[in-house]
């Protein structure tokens, strides 16, 4: 089967800013694929190139087997694109927006009813409400519905969950999962690292480069060092103490604990734990617990990010 997306050495500059500096990756047909990274990483630029809205300076990209530059017009009716900024008509009702997007692609709501049903049934109670007056989560569902109405073979969703509350985010991902299990390919970007686990595979993006491309479990497992969760009654004091500890490789707050790695990779993990515990207790901290913890995608992201940034400085 042809890969749904093939990106080869894509470079894009805006003036003196390099948005993408040599990005390559592949999205398989039927995959739910996530580009995970902060604002300014280059996610939107890449999505605009894949949605045929922007031409790369170098390299090439193909979607559904067609070149995004040469086959631009053919591709546009085969892809669905949901930009990061809310891009529907706020003064039109839910139904009017949907009808408009259907008509642009020469179809009708009635004809596409089955395809959009899982989402449209949630929107139907608000059919006559102005799109601008919907809640954040509902706006995103309407935008998804509009991106789907012409039966695209692939969806590009640029930060569909940004600024949306945690519960609506979950519901949105549930929708995406059900769509891709029906055979659709979906490419999604997000700044929320915890959403990586909802994807089949992810690419971690930072400063216009991909730090890793793998399954979420593979990315997490590539962390490559013993990771410890350190807790005590006083988080900030513990964090400051760990900053002073001569063997600290990294120490970051993570939920209710601090994720810590030791510089000395040759030392047994048990010894690393004992020594950091002893150090903290010598610092006067009490109720200290140090336990191994499995790395997450976010741990790997930070480790790779730290490494790539340290390359430029005195390491």
């Amino acid at each position, binding site marked *: 089967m042809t890969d749904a997306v093939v990106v080869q050495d894509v470079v894009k500059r805006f003036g003196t800013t390099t948005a993408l500096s040599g990005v390559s990756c592949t999205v398989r047909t039927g995959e739910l694929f996530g580009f995970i*990274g*902060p*604002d*300014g*990483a280059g996610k939107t630029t890449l999505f605009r190139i894949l949605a045929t809205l922007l031409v790369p300076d170098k390299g090439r990209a193909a979607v559904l087997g067609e070149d995004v530059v040469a086959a631009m017009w053919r591709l546009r009716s085969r892809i669905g694109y949901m930009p990061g900024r809310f891009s529907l008509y706020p003064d039109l009702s839910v139904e009017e927006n949907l009808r408009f997007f259907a008509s642009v692609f020469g179809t009708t709501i009635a004809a596409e009813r089955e395809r959009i049903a899982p989402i449209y049934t949630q929107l139907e109670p608000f059919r006559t409400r102005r799109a601008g007056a919907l*809640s*954040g*989560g509902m706006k995103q569902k309407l935008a998804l519905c509009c991106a789907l109405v012409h039966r695209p073979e692939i969806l590009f969703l640029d930060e569909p969950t*940004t*600024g*949306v*509350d*945690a*519960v*609506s*985010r*979950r519901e949105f991902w549930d929708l995406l999962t059900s769509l891709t299990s029906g055979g659709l390919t979906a490419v999604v970007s997000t*700044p*929320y*690292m*915890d959403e990586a686990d909802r994807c089949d595979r992810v690419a971690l993006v*930072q400063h216009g480069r991909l730090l890793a491309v793998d399954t979420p479990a593979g990315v997490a497992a590539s962390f490559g060092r013993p990771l410890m969760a350190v807790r005590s009654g006083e*988080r*900030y004091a513990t*964090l400051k103490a760990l900053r002073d500890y001569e063997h600290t490789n990294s120490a*970051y*707050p*993570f*939920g*209710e604990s601090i994720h810590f790695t030791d510089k000395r990779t040759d030392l047994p993990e048990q010894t690393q734990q004992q020594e950091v515990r002893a150090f903290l207790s010598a610092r006067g901290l009490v109720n200290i617990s140090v336990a191994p913890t499995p790395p997450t995608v*976010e741990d790997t*992201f*930070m480790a790779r*990010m*730290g490494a790539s940034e340290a390359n430029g400085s005195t390491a």
Partner: protein
Amino acid sequence: MSAGAADAADVTIRAKELTRTFGRFIAVDHISFDVRGGEVFGFLGANGAGKTTAIRMLTGLLKPSAGQATVAGFDVYRQSEAIKRHIGYMSQRFSLYEDLTVYENIQLYGGIYDLSNRQIRDRAENMLQRLGFRDAAAALVRSLPLGWRQKLAFSVALLHQPRIVFLDEPTSGVDPITRRQFWELIYEAAAAGTTVFVTTHYMDEAEYCDRISIMVDGKIGAIGTPSELKSRFGTDSVDEVFVRLARPTSSSAPGGTAQ
């Protein structure tokens, strides 16, 4: 140290039955809570739950329909101008002027809050030194990475040494390392006695707060330390607590045991 049991002297925000209606719609429905000096208080809720309306009342921008609130000791009905002078505010959307330099932004905010030139000079020097931004004083804000801008915006919001700082999604879209560095600035400010009132959509950040409140349909659905809430709801993450509260229909206990 349970919720609402703080000494009056130590309270920097006190809301009692605070309510705001728009026509027939009740945006904020009789909410009551106290926030103590030096506390990091997380103010969570689904989109549309009433957070923004509540924050606008607490920052003196919107008059309540009923109930009482004092912020930094000032009354939200009668002393909204005094409140504005005694709080700091930073939002994700707008915080600094991108076409001004770092130093010009500091001067502007210092001027707005009536600081003398000398105070502005000294505090700017100190702030830039602490942030490691001294070389960036003459740089246009637009040229700085997002993470720097957010740290700078936070420090500028503290320039007039307010007792309370309101942070509205301060880390949205920021990379995970910078996000954590930002939280270290929050801890530092709180350790120095500043009350930090913060909203976020990152559920791990909810765990970094001393206490959190979760708003549901205009009411406070739950309030307490992250570990209190987790044990009360029998979950191991604040994220789960949030889901149970925000979508009671999908869980077994509709409404829960909201106070």
